Each structure stands twice: as structure tokens, then as C-alpha cells.
């Protein structure tokens, strides 16, 4: 058990947890940030995706204790008053079905569009391939990423 501080959504948070506790469970159980979802626990589904220094990371697969000097962003911190253009696109195209995977999808998409502002269809499909949507809202996810790219350019 250790106490340490991590920076989440721009705020320093003190955490007391076992050293091996994945960031996912620190966010959900200790910091009450339940927007980040648990799907598989082994880095396979992307439901738990957050940003570490702007890069998409599977929070189920990294211990929070390793993230002391970085900036973590979760779905709750992605936008403030105004929605992020990716969230806007998600809304415009009515993407979600059950909605459970969507925070992870959005976090993957936002980090991807930061690296590739003008992606083609193949690049979008490649980038989103590792996020599972069991409801199979894939058509709309694909269109929403393209729409967001267009809006942001």
C-alpha cells in the first residue's frame, strides 16, 4: 500500500492504493471517475481508454503508481462547457446503442485525430480496430471520426 499523487484532468489527486492497482480501478473506485469503463482487464477491448500526456492508453493495463509525472485525461476531462468536436460528431450521428464502449471509443478517436488530422477511411478503420463495440455501432463510429476530422480541419 502506498500513497502518491497523480494528475487527472488537470488536478493533482492523492491516491492510496496497492502499487499494482491498475489506473482503471484507481479512477473508478478511488477517484469516482466512472466514465472510464471496464471491459476485459487485459488490454483487448479499449473500453478503459484514457489519455496519458495526450496519447491513448489502456488504463486497465498500467498501474497508476507508474504515472506520477504525467498528465492523465479521462472522458470526464475531455471537454468543459463546450463538447469536444469528436463528442459533437458522436451526438450528430447518434452513435451509441448501449453506450458502454463509447467513452473508450471517443478517447481513442480524439488521440488518433491529434496525430492524424486528416485521415482517410482505411486509417480510421485501422485506428479504431482495437476498440470493441459489442453492439456493433461500428458504421457510425467510423462516420463520426470522419465527421469530427472534417469539423476540426
Amino acid at each position, binding site marked *: 500500500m502506498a500513497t502518491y499523487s497523480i494528475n487527472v484532468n488537470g488536478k493533482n489527486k492523492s491516491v492510496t492504493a496497492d502499487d499494482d492497482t491498475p489506473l482503471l480501478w484507481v479512477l473508478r473506485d478511488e477517484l469516482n*471517475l466512472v466514465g472510464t469503463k471496464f471491459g476485459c482487464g*487485459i488490454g483487448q477491448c479499449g473500453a478503459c481508454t484514457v489519455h496519458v500526456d495526450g496519447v491513448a492508453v489502456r488504463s486497465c493495463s498500467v498501474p497508476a503508481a507508474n504515472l506520477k509525472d504525467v498528465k492523465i485525461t479521462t472522458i470526464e476531462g475531455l471537454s468543459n462547457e463546450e*463538447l469536444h468536436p469528436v463528442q459533437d460528431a458522436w451526438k450528430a450521428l447518434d452513435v451509441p446503442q448501449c*453506450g458502454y464502449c463509447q467513452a473508450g471509443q471517443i478517447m481513442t478517436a480524439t488521440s488518433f485525430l491529434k496525430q492524424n488530422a486528416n485521415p482517410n477511411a482505411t486509417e480510421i478503420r485501422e485506428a479504431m480496430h482495437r476498440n470493441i463495440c459489442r453492439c456493433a455501432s461500428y*458504421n*457510425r463510429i467510423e462516420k463520426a471520426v470522419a465527421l469530427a476530422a472534417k469539423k476540426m480541419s
Partner: protein
Amino acid sequence: MKNKNNITFSRRNFIRTSTLATGGLLVGFNLFNACKDTATPPIDVSKLNFNEFNAFIKIADNGYVTLYSPNPEIGQGVKTSMPMIIAEELDVPWEHVTVEQGNLDTKNFQRQVAGGSQSIRFGWDVLRQTGATTKQMLINAAALKWGVEAATCSASKGIITNAKGETLGYGDVVNEAAKLEIPENVTLKLPKDYTIIGNDAINVDIDKIITGKPLFGLDYKVEGMSYASVARPPAFGQKIGTFDATDAKTVNGVSDVIQFGDKIAVIGKNTWSAMKGKKALKIDWINDNKLESTEDHHNELNKILNSKKLNVRRDDGNVDKAFASADKIIERIYESPFLPHNCMEPMNFYAHVSDAKVHLVGPIQTPAGTASRVAKLINRDEADIHLEMTRMGGGFGRRLYGDFVMEAAEISNITKLPIKVVFSREDDMAAGIYRPAIKYRIKAALKNGKITGYHLKEAAINSNMYGLIPNFFPAGAIKNYRVESGNYKSDITTGAWRAPYTNFLAFAEQSFFDELADELNTNPVQLRLDLLSNVQDGKDDSIEYSAKRMTDTIKLAAKKSNWGQTDSNTYQGFSAYYSHNTHVAEVVDISLSNGLPIIEKVTVAVDCGIVVNPTGAKNQIEGGVIDGLGHAMYGDFTFKNGKPQDINFNTYRLIRMKETPIVETHFVKNNLSPTGLGEPGLPPAGGALANAIKAATGQLLTKQPFIKNLDRRKTDLNA
């Protein structure tokens, strides 16, 4: 008029009204069943009494409307579409409507169940009646205020207008309306006058979903609650022998380890400690009987297919004679594996059993039935059980079963702690209640270029196709027709999985028809149309589908997909199926690359009657079709000595973005009552894909998953 304490009763037995303490009108009503005569709506919204009503409309004195939607939301969109129906007849602008989940439910409702794609179908009449009745009440109140005849007034978009052109907003007359008698015979709108139904309405929870607000069972928290991770027998047929919890108890955060039945719960102060503690348990699992493997299931199902003692489910004409006099008999066996549901949100539930009450919260499709099972299990009065539903991260049938609720209740009953049971993905995939493995043997008798006899045998694990399915197509279209079934009782637990039975039956039959079309030298689409022309709607009441609606649906799919007119690198497969009261036809377009089919596009035609919310409806179809393709292509789930061989997404393959086609959905336009969409898109998909692969390579795929059975040499050869 019977008037007491502000509450007006009417002969109409599904609506009650009252004024609100805060000003405004509250209308309580019951979807799916009439409420008791004694039922009274609460005056205070914070005390909405879902014991007596399962749905409420609140109209505030500013005219804004809140609908407390009764059905659990599993992602099928009813939380948006059902309120749209009320709002249409109530005639308020959709922008003035907010929707809240009526999250509490108990014994008084027959159907607060999301399953079988039936919510919209059963709700249609009551929702319209309630909306229209409330609107008439508001008009009557305004007329009274003006001192004119109600018949001279009308209402639209939340505004009531009289003959002189004077207006009152709904909000201006809510307090008066609550005191009036409930009007009896109201007129419903004609579909041509709809302004909300038939227009896209974005999911009412969209903002919460895309900003990560707590919505799901897994997000539910109570101060001081503990978490439980449960060790269940890893193989079906096993029981607990001895166990040692010493190591588990030393895990930081673990507070207790308890045994209940053949399970052990590790209780921790957070999810991680409970999960870690479970991994540290040392358990000796034992079994009395031989544990089952996939090979055993194959043998047992084959035995059933070969047996003469099956259950006859439908038997038309003289099947034996048709086969005896056939020119040719075609016979095929189709096989599908068990499948786990794999809802994206793993099973979980919160329970707090105390002397005063039993508080249960979480994602469940069957709140009423589950509450009464919990009462029995822990020996409590049903009145003590207080069950709240949360949004569900997928259902697919899995959350019809309350096993995880029972576990939570039992653990809390023993420990008296507020606890949440959380399944890991491995727990979720290994816990059972799978889509049963099934084999079909289908035989057709051909004579003079016609199908003269049809004989289908179903061999399934644990149970068989439900009552109405033997009356689906091609029943009625082939004179001599027989369906038989039998099952093998297995230790592996099974249950409903999105479009139960038809999810695979449709594949088997629709692939078989394609082969028959080849055999008869007919276009596969034409073969279906010819068969449907043998059916006269309404002549035989037992026939479930409509030949006319199916024919129109098939024609629409053929037209929109340019059936038979694609370029030389595209191969098409066709399939059509009626299930859950909805008619669907699909055309899959594929190309070949490196010996594998690339699914490019699926054109879907759907007859679900009036389309309440087109964007939501299309979302369901897109999802159902890709789900169907994904499981036909990749869904593989085998057992060795009672143990499932894949328990997480590293080896269990679900369809992902790069493997998905574009799904293009077209609706047959008519003014018939709406039917559900959560399931019917799925059954035809696998068959349409198999037929496209056959068109491309000549390979007949009779076993799922295709990925395991594709003859890649064949696909290379033709590529």
C-alpha cells in the same frame, strides 16, 4: 364525476391523474396491464409510486413535459422511442420533453422486461391512448376556463386554441385539468399527421453517454459499500471440495471470504482487492460425473438427429409420401457452437440486505421476476424488496437471468454488508447461460422442378425452439412440411441469446434454400418469391409471417442492392427471414482477398410497420446485422472437460471495425403498427454471408464459425 383529494378516477382503467405539490399535472398510467382500481398517483414527484403505475407523465406549469419511461434500456432505444409516441399524441414539441428512466419496479407489472423486441409492439396502443387522453384533458380544462365547448377548441405543439383564436399553453391549465374527469373516447392521430413519429430523435441519454456520466450498473456506488469477486466452479459439472483462503485474506483490502453453495466470495474494499483476493484462493474442485467436452456434444446431437423419437412440432400434408415419391432428395446438416453473450458491461449487481429492507440496484432485464426470486432465496417478504434498474451495457438476452442478482443478495444476506458483485470478463464468459449448441438436419423432396416436401430436425442442448418458430417461413409455403426437435440435457447452462434459435435456424434454412435454388436452376430471390406465392395471408391462422409483407420486403432488398447486377469482383448472397414480428431481407456483397471474404456491404430491407425513430431503428439494424455476421464468421466456443476454452477477448474473437461492412437500411413504407428491431436484423445475416461465399467460391458453409471452416484454397483459386 368522482372527486376526492384532488384525485380523479375514471372508468378508464389505465390512467389516473393528480395535481402536483409543486404545481402541474401528473398522469400515472400502466403500460401492458391495467392498474388496480385503488391505485392512486403520488402528489409528489420525488415519491413517484412505481408500485401502482409503471409510467408517468408530468406536465409542469410552464408547459414542459417529463416522461418517466418504464422500460429498461439495454441499448435498443426504447427510452427514446416510447416517449416519442406519447409526445406525438400529447402534441408537445419534442424539445420540451425530457425523459427519465422509471427505475423502480416491483410485482405489479407483467411486462417490464426488455426482451424479444416486444417493447414497442406492446406499448404502441397504450402510449398513444395515454398521450391523446391527456391532451383531451388539457383541451377540456381550457374550454372550461373560456366557457366554450371543448369541441370548438384544438391543440397543437403544446398550445390550445379556441374558435376566436385565443390561446392557452398546456402549462396554463394543468392545475384545472387534474381536477377533471378523464375523457373516454379520444381520437388518435392519423399517421399522415405525425410530426414526431417518423422523424429522427437522438438518443435521450446521448450527453450523459459521451461525457462519461454514471449511468450503468457498474457505475453505481454507495458510500461504504464493499465489492465481491466470486469464484465459481471453473468447469460445468464441478462442485467445491475443500478450499484454503489463507493467502486471499492477506491481500490488502480483502475483508472477508465466505462460501455460499458451490461458490466462494472474496469481499474487498475495492474491485481490485476483491479480484486479487479471488486469484489467491486455493480451491479443490471435484466432480462426481464425467465432465463434458465439445466432442461429447457432437456425438449426442448426432444421436438425436438420427433418432426416430423426436418431438413433432408441426406436421403438414404427408411428408413421408412426398419423400417416397421424390425425384431427388437434398439433405444437409448445419452446426453451430455455444456462444457467450459478452455484454460489454460485465455482469454486476448491488445488494444491501438489512432488517428493514432489501435494496437491489443494477442492470437487469427482468426486474419483477428477479425481485420475487430474491425474496424466495433469502426468505423475505416480496414487499421488502426494492429493486432499481440502471442502464445496461448490452443485454442480448444475458440480463434476463438474475443469477448475478441472486449472488449479490445471498452475499449481502450473509454479511449484511452493502456489496456489489462484479464479474471479471473471465467470470462473465465462463459463467454459462450460453446460446445452446445446435444442429439442424434439413431434407427437401424435389419433384418436377418443385419443392414437394420439407423436413427439419432440430437437435439442441437443453431445450428447443420456442412454440411459434415452427410456424415461421417456410411453413405454409410447402405443402408437406414437418418440424421435429429433441434435446440433450447438459451440465453446460444455456439461455436466450439475441433472437433465440432463429439466430442459427435462419442461417441453416436460408443457406439450404440457396442450395435448392441452384439445384432447381432458379434465382435464389425468385425461389423465395415463388414459395411465398403459395401462401395466402389469413387463410391459415397458425402461420406467423405475412407472405405479402415478406414479398414486398424481399423485392425492396433486391432492388436496392442491385441484385444480380454487380461488377465481376463482387459476389452477392441473399437471405430473408421473419422473426419477432418483423420481416427482414438482406443482401451481402463480398469480394475476395488473400483467400478470405471481405464483406463490403449489406443492403437490408425491413418491414417493421411504422418506423417510430428512424435513426434509432437503423442503429438497431446496423448493429444486429454486424453482430450476426461477426458471430457467424468468428464465434467459436468449445469445451474441454466441462471448461470453456476461451474466456477473454485475447482468444475469443468478436468482430471489429476493419471486418465490418457498410450496412444500408431501407424500410418498407406502410402504416401498420410498429414491431421491434432489436433482434430481427440478426438472423438473416449469417445465411446471406454464407450464400455470398458460395457464389464466390462454390464452397458450401454448413458450420459456424466460418473462419474455422473456410476452404481457403478454394477462395484463392477463384480470387
